[in-house]
């Protein structure tokens, strides 16, 4: 029989580790953490493979990958690779590294994957709109008391709570 995954760490302890990592990021690199920038860069590099002229034409893509610029040659991409590696190592040690689809019990796997994709599209769009995601804006900006980041953070929660009722079937027991 497969061993059960270990229980998750106390949220305040995990948060303290997160805070120390965030401080280390500021102290060693001037900037905090982030994920959405690197995700954009992956998108630009994929677009570049098939349609270079389009990357040169669209303003925000050109900033990352116009001409010979390699969009992946950027610190944020290495931060993202590290996030991936760290997540995998921690999952391995805590017996949470296993192929599965995590979903509410009332929907099918196909439905879950569909909504994960849709949610991802909305999130990816919103993160560019807000110039950063939960980590880059809320965490990093929050820690240095940036007013815009605090406003942004509350809006993410408001957006989530306002929608939660309408999609409750996705997550209900």
């Amino acid at each position, binding site marked *: 029989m497969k061993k059960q995954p270990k229980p998750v760490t106390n949220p305040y302890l995990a948060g303290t580790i997160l805070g120390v990592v965030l401080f280390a990021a500021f102290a060693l690199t001037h900037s905090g953490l982030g994920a959405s920038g690197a995700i954009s860069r992956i998108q630009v590099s994929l677009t570049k493979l098939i349609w270079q002229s389009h990357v040169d034409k669209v303003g925000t893509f050109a900033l990352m990958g116009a001409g010979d610029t390699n969009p992946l040659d950027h610190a944020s991409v290495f931060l993202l690779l590290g996030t*991936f590696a760290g997540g995998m190592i921690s999952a391995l040690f805590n017996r949470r590294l296993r192929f599965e689809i995590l979903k509410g019990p009332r929907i099918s796997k196909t439905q879950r994957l569909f*909504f994960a994709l849709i949610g991802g599209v909305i*999130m990816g769009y919103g993160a560019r709109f807000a110039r950063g995601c939960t980590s880059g804006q809320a965490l990093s900006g929050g820690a240095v008391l940036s007013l815009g980041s605090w406003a942004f953070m509350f809006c993410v929660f408001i957006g989530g709570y306002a929608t939660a009722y309408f999609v409750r079937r996705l997550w209900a027991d």
Partner: protein
Amino acid sequence: MLPLDISSELGKAGGYLVFFLIGSGFGVALELAGFGDSRRLAAQFYFKDMTVLKTMFTGIIVACILIFLSSAVGFLDFTQLAVNQTFLWPGIIGGLIMGVGFIVGGYCPGTSVVATASLKLDGLLFLTGAVLGAGLFGESLPKFEGFWYSSFTERFLVSDWLGWSIGATVFAVILFALIMFYGAEKVEEYFRIRGTGKAMSWKITRRSYLFGAGTLVVLAGLVWIIGQPDPVRKWKYMESRYAVQLTTKAVFIHPLEYVKTNNEATIKLITLDLRPGKDFEAFHLSGSQNVTLDDLLKTSVVAPLAQLPPQGVVVLIAENDSVSIKAWKYLKVQGVVNLYILENGLQNWKSLFADKTVAGKTFNLASPPSEVLKLFPKDSFIQKIKIGSKKRAGGLCS
């Protein structure tokens, strides 16, 4: 003094390695909190599991205290940290959109990376969606570009908005977070017991929680009591780094270099004249602003100087060295990058150009044209202004 300039110390590859290691720490922290599981993240929005709020705010306040405490005691120069630029309304709209994506998809960008790394297929689909969404945004941006660049403030802190000191703001933020944690515990208890009846056990006593909260309050109190350093105190912390630029005269520029710089189209030159108002009115260089030493302690005056683009240069003019050096120190510790002093102020300015003519005509002494430079031997001054092509480290969201 922190922050380190890691890529100049370790080179590009070394810098990337550091980013990779920091990212690994980030990934571990997210995974430990259970953020690789969409159900846990979504439960936040049904009040059944407040882990997202607790972990996120703990991370924010711990980092916040570490940053401002190290800044207060002189370990870290806060002006060098990248603070997210504020685009208020686009941030608010983007945040609301992300909230919707969060509850529909069950992840945010960072957590979906961790979910994918721990082999959750829904995490991979979410991440794929996020890549598509980022592309869609780029395609659609031209339709509302004006809005996306609106309501902009470069570096605007919660403390600026409240009109409080940073220390008081940090203290208030900690109290706010602790009250929220208490509320989160109560809410969670109520909704979980009503739902499944299961209570979470962390094998941590009430006393340890109180001890943790107490530590945070004490540290935040220290941040408030010590206060963020004013320019005089900050200079003491930073003297070892910058004093050499004054003693070797590396930042004192010759009037001819001023003329040269002033005539260069690519450089944005800002000239601050610290002489008394009556001297300024009698004669001053075109485009220069008359300021006092006290002005250089005001955020409204200093912020635009500290946020100049990389090719921005600030030159100080004063009636004597003691004033100009004091002003230089004030501005340097507040994060003004390309900062220079006009050697001997304007004392020799008029005599230097007295009998000079360009194409047989006299010229305006307040803004000599670049042709004047040809009237002097090439070695009449040593070029001191250096403009780093390197852009100051921005956030990672771009």
